[in-house]
């Protein structure tokens, strides 16, 4: 059992303990730019009575929700094609290629979109050839979404693909043979069978988008700021770490509720067979 210890100790000491400390910190005070241990609710009251906090909260929630829907929808045809139309070799290569960007400097990848999205960037250059534009894409919500897609799309396609690949092909063929159209087969046979995997993919997309600060900051222009940007601003410019802790805990609780609801929904028994 000694093999259990290294992981247990490290994660308790440097993962659980810092997270617990964050909760304690949210009740501390800041006096003369120094943090003083205490048990005061002042940080919670200050943050929760500020309009800008709730603006940021609902804006972040909305961005993450849109990102989840858009990414899931855009990923699905790709995952579907790879799962049902591609040969095993092509499928393996596709997985191989999609896993690479997930582990490859997201910061630089997101930033590179500036080359495409800028007012004189590649896209507007192309549009002007056809007599359109220029369109403002950088520092808009569109820019933020391109960034979120950069972050989430490869992962969501991979997760959807894994769940679609496990769908029993016999059931799909049975549906076709019984005269069920292609589109109807997708929505009434394939999607329900792959539901758990699809929901898990969407949940990861929500978690990643909700916590990300690179896309809303560098591609979305940070107007208004998201919760992650709020944490950075509060920590880096002011010495208000306790208030940043309030934002962080609120985010964690929100993510836990979302993840729990998603899992409950994913495993819920279908009412109609």
């Amino acid at each position, binding site marked *: 059992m000694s093999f*259990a210890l290294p992981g247990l100790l490290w994660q308790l000491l440097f993962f659980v303990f*810092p997270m617990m400390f964050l909760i304690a910190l949210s009740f501390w005070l800041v006096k003369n730019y120094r943090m003083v241990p205490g048990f005061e609710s002042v940080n919670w009251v200050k943050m929760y009575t500020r309009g800008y906090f709730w603006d940021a909260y609902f804006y972040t929630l909305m961005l993450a929700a849109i990102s989840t829907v858009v990414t899931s929808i855009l990923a699905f045809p790709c995952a579907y*094609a790879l799962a049902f139309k591609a040969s095993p070799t092509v499928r393996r290569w596709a997985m191989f290629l999609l896993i690479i960007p997930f*582990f490859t400097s997201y*910061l630089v990848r997101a930033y*590179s979109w500036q080359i495409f999205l800028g007012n*004189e960037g590649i896209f507007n250059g192309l549009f002007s050839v056809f007599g359109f534009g220029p369109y403002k894409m950088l520092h808009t919500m569109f820019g933020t979404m391109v960034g979120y897609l950069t972050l989430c799309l490869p992962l969501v396609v991979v997760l959807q693909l894994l769940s679609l690949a496990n769908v029993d092909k016999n059931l799909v063929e049975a549906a076709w043979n019984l005269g069920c159209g292609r589109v109807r087969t997708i929505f009434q046979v394939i999607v329900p069978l792959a539901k758990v995997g699809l929901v898990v993919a969407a949940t990861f997309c929500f978690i990643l988008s*909700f916590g990300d600060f690179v896309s809303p900051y560098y591609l979305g222009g940070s107007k208004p700021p998201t919760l992650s940007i709020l944490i950075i601003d509060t920590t880096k410019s002011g010495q208000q770490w306790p208030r940043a*802790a309030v934002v962080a805990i609120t985010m964690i609780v929100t993510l836990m509720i979302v993840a729990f609801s998603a899992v409950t929904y994913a495993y819920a028994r279908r009412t109609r067979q």
Partner: protein
Amino acid sequence: MSDRSRASDSAISTWFLRLYVLVVFAFVFAPIIASFVFSFNSDRFPTIPLGSFTTKWYETIFADTDVWDAFARSLTVAAITAVISTTIGFCTAYTDFRYRFRGKGFYLGLALLPPTVPLVIMGLAMLALLSRINMSGQVYSIVISHVVLCSPFAMAICRLRLSQMDPSLEAAAWNLGASQWQAMKTVIIPFCKPAIIAALCLTAAVSFDEFAVAWFVSGLNKTIPVMILEILQGNVDPQINAIGSFVFAISISLVVVAQILVMTRDDKGRKS
């Protein structure tokens, strides 16, 4: 619907799907390719048509000692993080493979959850705690945090490999008189070797690319991604594309090696 129109219908949808898959892959790889192309572009601001070919951005970063320092620091952090988190990940994976015990679900949750916590929150929590005990702003502060983030990936890779092993192999070694350590050394570790090397590569890649937690805890000891992050907050600077291309080259190589090792089949000792 007649058979013929149904067939042409499906041919159209197949072509549409193929095209769609290509568009998705183009979207995924466009930023990496653009960064590489524009790192050789002479214009300060990225516009189309391209300016002339230049290596001046590479010359600038090669001449910059700050970049070299950050680069060396990033490599050091990545190497140490890879070794520690792979050791931890392997031990955790073996625990899951070999033992049943109460609280295992909690144990595995603890081992796998860290990557789902937003990096900014992880950064804040690490900074708050480490600065309280005077351990922030050091190179080892980055290593400590990166091991938390990376060991779950190492655990997943090693666990996958162990699940392909015939569990009776280890039992056979025990029956033949091997101690647990001997069985570990002569049976388990050799079987897991590709996974261990893959985990080393992948955790090194994750650490080498990580910018958010490192930004919070590194203080003045900037790594390459933290340096990129701080340059980005200033003006447009084409050096980013040059540094970025380097970062891409390194992390893509590491991830490719890791994937090849995970995917390569060798049937010695496999479950039948």
